[in-house]
């Protein structure tokens, strides 16, 4: 799937042609440079590797500097592999936001905001007790039973419990592209996108 790396800028709202007010996220998408071209002869499959995000060379490992030098492109922050470009792009080319068209649907992947240690009501959507009287002393947001007793005499793996929430790779699917601004490399999609402002996101078709 063709895709790009970008940066989440923030949210706003725009009006569509029917006058409806749509919640939108502004993403600075690309331009990404092609840092490697994989072909069936050399790698067994067709794909391109794209890189995005400026980075000082002193913060990059020698191995990576070598990789970028070989491709003849400046050192970048994030690298992903995408396909579907059909040998149209060459090493060192720039892939920009014009691969997307207004009205189509894209998936956006990012790292969600960390929420810390959270209980089951927020983390897994449990209902809570729903009653504050009839013997509910301090059990309002408790998880309830986590299994039977002497048989199986253990708690099953993957039981939904309280714990660390957020900060995980998350994909939001089928966000409609509302505007594409080639001049400023901006992409406006309907709805929200995982992560904080200025965090890296991956946009794929």
């Amino acid at each position, binding site marked *: 799937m063709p895709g790009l790396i970008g940066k989440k*800028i*923030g*949210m*706003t*709202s*725009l*009006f569509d042609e029917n*006058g409806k*007010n749509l919640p*939108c996220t*502004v993403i*600075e998408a690309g331009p990404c440079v092609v840092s490697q071209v994989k072909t069936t002869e050399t790698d067994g499959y067709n794909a391109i590797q794209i890189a995005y995000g400026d980075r000082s060379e002193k913060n990059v490992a020698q191995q990576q500097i070598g990789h970028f030098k070989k491709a003849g492109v400046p050192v970048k922050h994030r690298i992903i592999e995408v396909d579907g470009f059909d040998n149209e792009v060459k090493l060192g080319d720039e892939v920009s936001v014009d691969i997307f068209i207004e009205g189509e649907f894209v998936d956006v992947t990012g790292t969600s905001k960390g929420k810390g240690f959270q209980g089951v009501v927020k983390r897994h959507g449990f209902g809570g007790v729903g009653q504050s009287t009839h013997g509910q002393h301090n059990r309002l947001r408790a998880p309830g039973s986590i299994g039977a007793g002497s048989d199986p005499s253990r708690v099953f793996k993957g039981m939904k419990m309280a714990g660390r929430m957020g900060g995980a790779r998350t994909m939001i699917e089928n966000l409609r592209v509302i*505007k594409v*601004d080639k001049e*400023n490399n*901006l992409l*406006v999609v309907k709805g929200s996108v995982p992560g904080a402002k200025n965090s890296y996101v991956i946009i794929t078709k």
Partner: protein
Amino acid sequence: MDLVKLVQDQYIEKKDMPDFNAGDTITVYYKIKEGNKERIQFFRGIVLQRRGSGATETFTIRKMSGNIGVERIFPVNLPSIDKIEVNKKGKVRRARIFYQRERTGKAARIKERRM
């Protein structure tokens, strides 16, 4: 450079509208679509608040329909707004006059501000 602002400036059409604040009585004329026909309807009431800033600012107006209060929130730059008329300038001490919701009859009057 603020890129969100750039997007707003580029894609949201700014409306010319009169200056009004909480406590003012205004009439909002807006277009509604019925099938293929478009006609203009109006909503007249007291401005309770103006909220937000820039291109996404909104305002809330409240009117009494019979003895039932009706509130509507309009974005300032909503494309279907035809025009806004300021009927009366009100004299109030706050920017958000939610206390108006509890008041009816004589208590709900707002003093007029004379220019």
